[in-house]
């Protein structure tokens, strides 16, 4: 697939991907990695701060909270979104075996996201938007912060429009065919996200942008916060579904196995569209102004959304098992050790799955309504999302880039050994840090707090904080090795890459699969109705009955 010319430079010839698309995909991934580098850099400073070591004089930020805003926004919003944009573009093109339908839309999406990122980055870097990634009013950032992030969201809509146009064109030429699995995964992800992102779009465009510009004097705090969580929970499935896409539809191939059950895999994906939306109030269990009845309804649906995750756990493990057994693995667990642990892409994603299981359990506790009272806004929650988005998603994305970057650049991964080490270090670092943070949360240490200067710092917090600090240092080394390997692959690798896009095949050819498992529209319509029922009455009540007079503050 790759030809080395006389000068030794490599020019990849990637099927179906036009040169312009390849450049855009690489640009998305590069921006994602820059965000990972800058956001990750702040991590160890936060981790060390919890044992009372305050190194913020050595970091060019104005305060702990300025750094935390950078960490949160760059990692959880930028790294994820830009990686996903690049990855899903490639997945769509490769899945449908045709370029995206509109080159113009492809470029517009990219520039909308990139311009938005730059516009938002300026006030964040200049300490004019130290509102953390949740941006709860009445903390009021510079308008450019909200405008920039809104442009990023609009960019994702343009991208998804292009993906659906590509599907339409493919369908016209392939009537009656089943949508290729990986392309199906991309479409479900984007359909879910288009619905989910309406909340933050309304919050920013209708409430916060006019308010930050001074066009209106006051805003509606609880309405804005609820709209944020309308998007804020399903956004985790915007990160997780591309991860699942790799676990379900790619990894079985990478481990020499087959997808265990195509119909249940499709069902699990589709269930995430309706189930990820009516749950946002589980982030607001402790909020005033929201009746307990609504909180309970969302608690119920939160338990329901564990269901497709449980399906995922079964199908993914069963698919991996087919691979482990095909490679000669025996016994109830022996197959697991026979998986190709030498392949860093596989290692990273297997380790990501292990920590995800733990993160899922702590998530069940967060979801548990009144049990949430013992952990809400403590470091427990921080431990939870470092195992989920910080590991299940992030380490899987890293694992994906171990084949994806060689595939796109035509250059073999510079050092597979370093990549394996990196994955293990991330696993160990997160296990240590996650353990420490969950423990700190049980001891009631608050999150988003500069603990080194907190007058109420309790002596018993010190031991778990050491776990956080140690984990933070291991993670920093791991993150550095990852970026180094990526840079060396791009600029110093002289070996042609021998990689293909891994695409799993189903174990059985299910001729009789229900047709609803290959249709999006009924699911999207059903989800819209369910979402409206679970949100609109309460949002409407807040709109008409809650004060719109709350002025903005700059508290930093």
């Amino acid at each position, binding site marked *: 697939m790759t030809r080395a010319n006389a000068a030794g430079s490599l020019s990849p010839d990637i099927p179906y991907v036009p040169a312009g698309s390849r450049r855009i995909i690489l640009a998305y991934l590069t921006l994602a990695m820059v965000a990972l580098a800058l956001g990750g850099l702040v991590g160890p400073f936060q981790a060390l701060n919890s044992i009372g070591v305050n190194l913020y004089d050595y970091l060019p930020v104005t305060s702990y909270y300025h750094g935390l805003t950078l960490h949160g926004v760059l990692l959880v919003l930028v790294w994820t979104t830009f990686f996903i944009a690049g990855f899903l573009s490639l997945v769509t093109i490769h899945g449908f075996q045709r370029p995206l339908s509109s080159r113009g839309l492809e470029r517009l999406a990219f520039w909308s996201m990139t311009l938005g990122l730059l516009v938002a980055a300026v006030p964040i870097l200049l300490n004019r938007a130290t509102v953390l990634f949740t941006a709860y009013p009445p903390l009021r950032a510079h308008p450019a912060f909200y405008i920039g992030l809104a442009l990023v969201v609009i960019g994702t809509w343009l991208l998804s429009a292009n993906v659906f146009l590509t599907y339409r064109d493919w369908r016209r030429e392939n009537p009656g065919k089943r949508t290729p699995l990986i392309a199906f995964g991309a479409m479900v992800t984007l359909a879910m996200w288009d619905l989910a992102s309406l909340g933050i779009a309304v919050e920013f465009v209708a409430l916060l942008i006019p308010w930050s510009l001074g066009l209106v004097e006051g805003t509606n705090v609880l309405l804005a916060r609820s709209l944020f969580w309308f998007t804020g929970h399903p956004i985790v499935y915007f990160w997780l579904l591309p991860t699942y896409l790799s676990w379900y539809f790619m990894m079985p191939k990478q481990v020499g196995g087959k997808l265990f*059950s195509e119909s249940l895999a499709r069902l699990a994906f589709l269930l995430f569209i309706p189930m990820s939306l009516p749950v946002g109030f589980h982030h607001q269990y402790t909020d005033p102004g929201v009746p307990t009845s609504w909180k309970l309804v969302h608690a119920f649906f939160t338990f329901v959304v564990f269901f497709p995750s449980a399906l995922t756990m079964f199908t993914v493990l069963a698919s991996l098992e087919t691979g482990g057994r095909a490679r000669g693995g025996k016994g109830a667990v022996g197959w697991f050790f026979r998986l190709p642990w030498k392949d860093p892409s596989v290692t990273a994603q297997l380790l990501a799955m292990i920590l995800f299981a733990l993160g899922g359990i702590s998530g069940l506790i967060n979801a548990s309504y009144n049990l949430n009272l013992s952990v809400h806004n403590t470091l427990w929650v921080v431990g939870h999302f470092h195992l989920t988005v910080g590991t299940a998603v992030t380490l899987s994305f890293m694992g994906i880039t171990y084949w994806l970057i060689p595939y796109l650049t035509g250059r073999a991964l510079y050092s597979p050994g370093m990549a394996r080490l990196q994955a293990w270090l991330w696993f160990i670092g997160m296990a240590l840090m996650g353990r420490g943070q969950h423990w700190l949360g049980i001891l009631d240490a608050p999150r988003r707090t500069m603990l080194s200067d907190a007058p109420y710092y309790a002596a018993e917090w010190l031991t778990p904080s050491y776990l956080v600090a140690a984990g933070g240092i291991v993670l920093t080394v791991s993150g550095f090795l990852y970026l180094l390997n990526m840079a060396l692959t791009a600029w110093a690798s002289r070996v042609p890459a021998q990689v293909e896009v891994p695409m799993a095949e189903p174990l059985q050819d299910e001729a009789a699969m229900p047709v609803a498992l290959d249709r999006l529209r009924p699911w999207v319509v059903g989800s819209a109705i369910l979402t409206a029922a679970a949100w609109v009455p309460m949002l409407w009540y807040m709109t008409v009955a809650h004060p719109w007079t709350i002025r903005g503050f700059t508290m930093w």
Partner: protein
Amino acid sequence: MHIHAYERFWIVLMTVVLAVFLGAVVYAAYGMGIQVPTDAGQVSPDQLASAPPFNEPGVKDLGGGFYQVVMLASAFQFEPGEITVPAGSDVEFVLTSRDVIHGFRVPGTTINAMVMPGQVTRILYRFDEPGEYTFMCHEYCGTGHHVMSGRIVVTAQ
């Protein structure tokens, strides 16, 4: 649609587990009375000086072992910052914010709530044993967030 026997077993198992967990949560809420905050009304932050009960922050003895604590949060303090109640009292906390969103967390209790401008937070809690509690703001509210805290003293009767 073919579903493998093991997978069918797994689906049933997970459904039962989730139902039991959810049942436990609902029982804790309605059987044991461990509730999360609910809608307790709205109040404009511009009118706190004249809006009861917020015009008089502090501890009120309502008689019969009942106390009301009216508290205002603002960057970066609670008013009152120190509260004394006797052991065995039932305390109703009523809070709101003068400026941005704050938190109210009393470690060692089930008291955990957000305090927002425009909204009234109401929490009921019974202090059985004498002792001292530190409470803190646990929602980011600005550069002084980490110093925002206070104390509850529960005295022996």
